C-alpha cells in the first residue's frame, strides 16, 4: 500500500486555477520528485498535502487515513515533515532552539529520545553543532537549509517533504544536500522532493512526475525522465 | 444587495419608531401631574454624580408627592442621560423643551453641558436650574438659567480670608487644582483674595480630569516647601490626600475646597485625612436630623453615601416647588422662571437667594476631620463673613 496517495487534487486561488486535478502516490522507502517550471503548481501540491492550502476537490490519504481536511499541525503529528521553500527557519531562535521546535510537537516526545534525535542531526550536520547557540538568522544559506532539514528530521517523520532544497545554494553545497538526501533515505525515511534542479533531483529519485501548469504531463522512473527529451525541452526550450 | 434592502428597511423603521415615540410625548394629557425634566450624566466619567442627581431628585419628588404634591398636582420627573456631553445634553434639552408637559428642567451637572443647553431653554423660555454648574458665566447667559451651587467668587474669598488666613494662620500655601472650568475659576477666586490677605502662593500645580498619578504634582509642590496645601477638586481629593501622606509628607497641613464634608472622602482616605479642613455650605452633622435622614435614605437608594452634590440637587427640586407654590395665576414655564428669581428658600444645604444673574451667594462653614469624622471647626470670627 502506498504511504501517501493524492487523488484528483484541484486547488483554486480565487479565480486562478493552480492545480487541475493531479494524481500521484508515494510508496514507503521511495524518493519521489515533482519537477516542473515556476508556477507549475509544485509548491501548491506540497502545501495541499501538509494542509496549508484549502482544496477545492480531491482526496489525500496518508497511512490509509484521509487527511484532506485535517489541520496542518495534526498532519505534521501524523508523521509528515514538510521543509518549506525558502527554508523558513526561525531567525531569532538559536540553532539548538530551532531543532527543539521540531521535537515539541512530536507525540513520541520524551527527553531522552529527543536528545538522541538531536545527536543524530548533529552527526549528520556537524556544521550545525559548531553554531549551536547562534541565532538561526545569522547562518549562511547552506547552513540554514541544513538546519531546516535537521529541524524536519527532529520530528522523526515517516515522510519528509523537501521543497526546493537547492534554492539559492552554491553548486558544491547543492551536491552536499543531495548526498544527504540519499543518506536520509537509507535511514528509512520516505522523501517527496520538489526541485527546479531537475537533473539533480531525477538522478536521486526512484520515480518522478513532471508538472506543467497544474497538470501532470509525464511520469516515470528517475532515469527514464532524465533522458527524456520532452523534459529537457520543457526546461531549456530547445 | 439583500443587505442593502434590509438596511434600508431597518433605517426607515428606526426613523418611524423615533418619530412615533417622541410624537406621543408632545400631547399634553391633563393636569393631574406636573412634570420636570432632569438632565444628568448617568453614564460616562461623571456618572456617580448623575446617579446622585437621579436619586436625590426622585427622593424629593416622592416626599413632596407623599405630602400631597404641589398645587394639588403630583410631581413627575423625566430623567435623561446626558453623559456629561454638551451635544447629548442639548439634544435632550430640545426633547424636554418640546414636551409641553415639562415645566422646568433641573440640570445639567457640568457647566459645559449646562451652557450648551442655555440657548435652547432661553428660546423656549423655560427654567434651567443647575444644581452644580459653577462656571461664572453660566447663570448670566439667560434669564432662565439658574444655579444653586454657590458662586466661586464667594467661596474662594471666604476660603482665603477665613480658613487659610484666620483659622489656619497659613503663610505659605501650595495649591493643587484640577484643570477644569470649575477648578480654574476656583483657583482664580482663591488666589486673588490671597493676594489681598497677604498669603503667599508658593507653588501651584494642575492636572486634567481622570488623572490618577499625583506623585509628580505633589513632588513639585513639596519642593516649594509650603506650610499648607490646598486641593481644589471634587473627585480626586481623596487620591491626592492619600498620595501626599504615603509619599511621607506628613507634616504639611491639608485643606480642600470642593468636595465639601463628604463621608466618602473619609472612607477613601482613612487616617490620611485626619486634620483635613474644608469649606462647605453644609455637612452631615449628627445633630442635623433632616440631613442625617437624607443621608440614610439616599445611601439606601443609591448604594453609596451622598456628597454635597445630591443634597443641592435635592434642594433644587424643593426650591422649584417653593416657587410654584407662590405663583398666582396659571402655572406656566415663564411664570416659574419669573417666580424662581425672587424665591427664597432654606434647604438642607443652607439658604438660597438668587443674585441678579441667577446664581446664589451661600454662607459657608469650616469643617474638619477629627477622629475619622467631620466636625464643625471653631475659633474664627464668623461675624464678618461676607
Amino acid at each position, binding site marked *: 500500500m502506498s504511504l501517501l496517495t493524492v487523488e484528483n487534487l484541484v486547488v483554486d486561488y*480565487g*479565480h*486562478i*486555477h*493552480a492545480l487541475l486535478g493531479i494524481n500521484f502516490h508515494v510508496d514507503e522507502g521511495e524518493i519521489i520528485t515533482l519537477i516542473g*517550471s*515556476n*508556477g*507549475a503548481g509544485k509548491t501548491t501540491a506540497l502545501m495541499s498535502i501538509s494542509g496549508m492550502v484549502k482544496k477545492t476537490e480531491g482526496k489525500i490519504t496518508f497511512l490509509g487515513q484521509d487527511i484532506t481536511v485535517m489541520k496542518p499541525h495534526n498532519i505534521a503529528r501524523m508523521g509528515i515533515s514538510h521543509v518549506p521553500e525558502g527554508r523558513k527557519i526561525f531567525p531569532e531562535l538559536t540553532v539548538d532552539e530551532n531543532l527543539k521546535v521540531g521535537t515539541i510537537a512530536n507525540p513520541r516526545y520524551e527527553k531522552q529520545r529527543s536528545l538522541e534525535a538531536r545527536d543524530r542531526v548533529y552527526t549528520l550536520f556537524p556544521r550545525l553543532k559548531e553554531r549551536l547557540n547562534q541565532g538561526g*538568522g*545569522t547562518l*549562511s*544559506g547552506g547552513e540554514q537549509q541544513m538546519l531546516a532539514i535537521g529541524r524536519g528530521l527532529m520530528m522523526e517523520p515517516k515522510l519528509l517533504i523537501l521543497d*526546493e532544497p*537547492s*534554492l*539559492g545554494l*552554491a*553548486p558544491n553545497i*547543492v*551536491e552536499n544536500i*543531495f*548526498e544527504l538526501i540519499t543518506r536520509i533515505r537509507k535511514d528509512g525515511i520516505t522523501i517527496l522532493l520538489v526541485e*527546479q*534542479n*531537475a*537533473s*539533480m*533531483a*531525477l*538522478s*536521486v529519485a526512484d520515480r518522478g512526475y513532471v508538472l*506543467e*501548469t*497544474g497538470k501532470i504531463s509525464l511520469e516515470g522512473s528517475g*532515469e527514464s525522465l*532524465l*533522458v527524456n527529451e520532452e523534459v*529537457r*525541452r520543457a*526546461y*531549456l*526550450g*530547445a | 444587495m439583500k443587505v442593502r434592502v434590509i438596511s434600508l428597511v431597518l433605517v426607515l423603521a428606526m426613523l418611524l419608531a423615533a418619530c412615533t415615540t417622541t410624537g406621543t410625548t408632545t400631547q399634553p394629557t391633563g393636569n393631574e401631574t406636573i412634570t420636570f425634566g432632569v438632565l444628568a450624566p448617568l453614564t460616562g466619567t461623571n456618572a456617580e454624580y448623575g446617579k446622585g442627581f437621579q436619586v436625590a431628585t426622585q427622593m424629593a419628588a416622592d416626599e413632596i408627592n407623599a405630602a400631597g404634591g404641589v398645587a394639588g398636582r403630583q410631581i413627575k420627573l423625566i430623567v435623561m442621560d446626558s453623559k456629561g456631553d454638551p451635544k447629548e445634553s442639548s439634544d435632550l434639552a430640545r426633547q424636554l423643551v418640546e414636551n409641553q408637559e415639562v415645566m422646568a428642567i433641573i440640570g445639567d451637572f457640568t457647566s459645559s453641558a449646562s451652557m450648551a443647553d442655555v440657548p435652547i431653554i432661553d428660546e423656549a423660555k423655560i427654567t434651567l436650574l443647575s444644581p452644580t454648574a459653577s462656571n461664572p458665566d453660566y447663570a448670566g447667559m439667560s434669564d432662565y438659567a439658574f444655579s444653586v451651587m454657590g458662586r466661586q467668587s464667594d467661596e474662594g474669598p471666604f476660603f482665603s480670608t477665613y480658613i487659610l488666613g484666620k483659622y489656619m494662620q497659613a503663610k505659605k500655601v501650595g495649591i493643587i487644582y484640577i484643570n477644569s472650568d470649575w477648578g480654574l475659576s476656583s483657583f482664580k477666586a482663591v488666589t486673588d483674595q490671597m493676594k489681598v490677605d497677604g498669603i503667599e502662593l508658593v507653588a501651584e500645580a494642575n492636572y486634567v480630569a481622570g488623572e490618577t498619578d499625583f506623585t509628580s504634582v505633589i513632588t513639585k509642590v513639596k519642593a516649594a516647601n509650603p506650610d499648607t496645601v490646598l486641593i481644589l477638586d471634587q473627585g480626586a481629593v481623596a487620591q491626592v490626600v492619600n498620595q501626599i501622606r504615603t509619599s511621607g509628607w506628613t507634616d504639611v497641613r491639608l485643606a480642600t475646597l470642593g468636595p465639601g464634608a463628604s463621608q466618602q472622602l473619609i472612607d477613601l482616605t482613612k487616617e490620611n485625612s485626619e486634620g483635613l479642613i474644608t469649606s462647605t455650605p453644609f455637612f452631615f452633622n449628627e445633630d442635623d436630623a433632616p440631613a442625617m435622614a437624607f443621608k440614610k435614605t439616599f445611601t439606601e437608594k443609591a448604594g453609596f453615601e451622598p456628597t454635597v452634590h445630591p443634597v443641592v440637587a435635592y434642594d433644587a427640586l424643593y426650591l422649584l416647588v417653593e416657587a410654584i407654590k407662590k405663583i398666582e395665576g396659571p402655572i406656566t414655564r415663564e411664570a416659574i422662571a419669573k417666580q424662581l428669581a425672587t424665591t427664597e428658600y432654606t434647604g438642607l444645604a443652607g439658604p438660597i437667594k438668587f443674585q441678579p444673574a441667577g446664581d446664589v451667594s451661600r454662607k459657608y462653614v469650616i469643617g474638619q476631620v477629627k477622629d475619622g469624622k467631620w466636625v464643625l471647626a471653631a475659633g474664627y470670627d464668623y461675624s464678618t463673613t461676607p
Partner: protein
Amino acid sequence: MSQLLVANNVSKHFGGLKAVDNVDMIINEGDIFGIIGPNGAGKTTFFNICSGVYKPTTGEITFDGHSLVGQKPEQIARLGMARTFQNIRLFKYMSVLENVFIGFQTKTRTGLADAILHTAAYKSDEQLIREEGLKVLDSLGLLPFKDTKAGNLSYGMQRKVEIARALALGPKLLLLDEPAAGMNQLEKQELMHFVIDLNKRGYTIALIEHDMRFVMNSCNRILVLNFGQKICEGTPEEVREDKGVNEAYFGKGLLVGRKGAAA
C-alpha cells in the same frame, strides 16, 4: 541604436546575503532583453532595483540619460519605465478599464480644483483617458472584458491586463517579470507572439522568464544570473551553447552512474 538602460556594477545585499552582486547590463532601444537564471538567482531583486523598489547597495543605474539613484518607483515610472509583477498585482476589485485608467496617471494633469469644477482640463483628461484606454484594450483584444472585474479573469488574461495597464503609461521601457508563469503552452505561445508584436510596434522590452522556449524564441539578448552574479550575456545562441548556463539551469547529475545521461 542608443542605450536606454545602463546598469553599472549594481549590488544589493540583504544583511549577509548578496542577492545581486556587481551586475552590469545594457539594454538598447528596440531590444527584447531577457533575464534568466534559476530560482533565487536575484532576477526579481535586480528588476526591483531598476524600478526603484529597492535602493542598490552599490552601483548606479541610468535610464534614458537620467540617473535612477535615489528615485522613487513613481518617479521612475514617470521617466517612462513601466513594469509588471511576478505575482500579478492588478487592482483585482476594479474593472479592467479602471485598471488601465490608473495607468494614465502620468499623462494627465487634473488637479483638485479641476476635478471639483469639471474644468476643461478635467474634461480633456477624462476624454483622453477614455479614448486611449479603450484603444489600449482594443489593441490587446481585451475590449470585451472592459467592465469585468480584473480579479475574475483567468490567469493569462490577468497577465494581459497588467501589461495593458503598463502600456497606458506609454513607456520607453517595459519590464515584464515572469509574464508566462502559470500559462499553458498555448497561452505561452500566444503571449510570446504578443511580446514580439509589441516590440515591433516600438516598445523596448525587458523580461524575466523561466520558460526557455519563450526566452530563446523571443529575446535578442539574454543576461544569465546565478547567485546574484552575471554568468553570461549574449544572443540566445550564445547562451544556449554556454556550458555554465546549462549547468546552472538544468543542473548536473550527481551520481556517477548517471552522469552520461545528463550530458
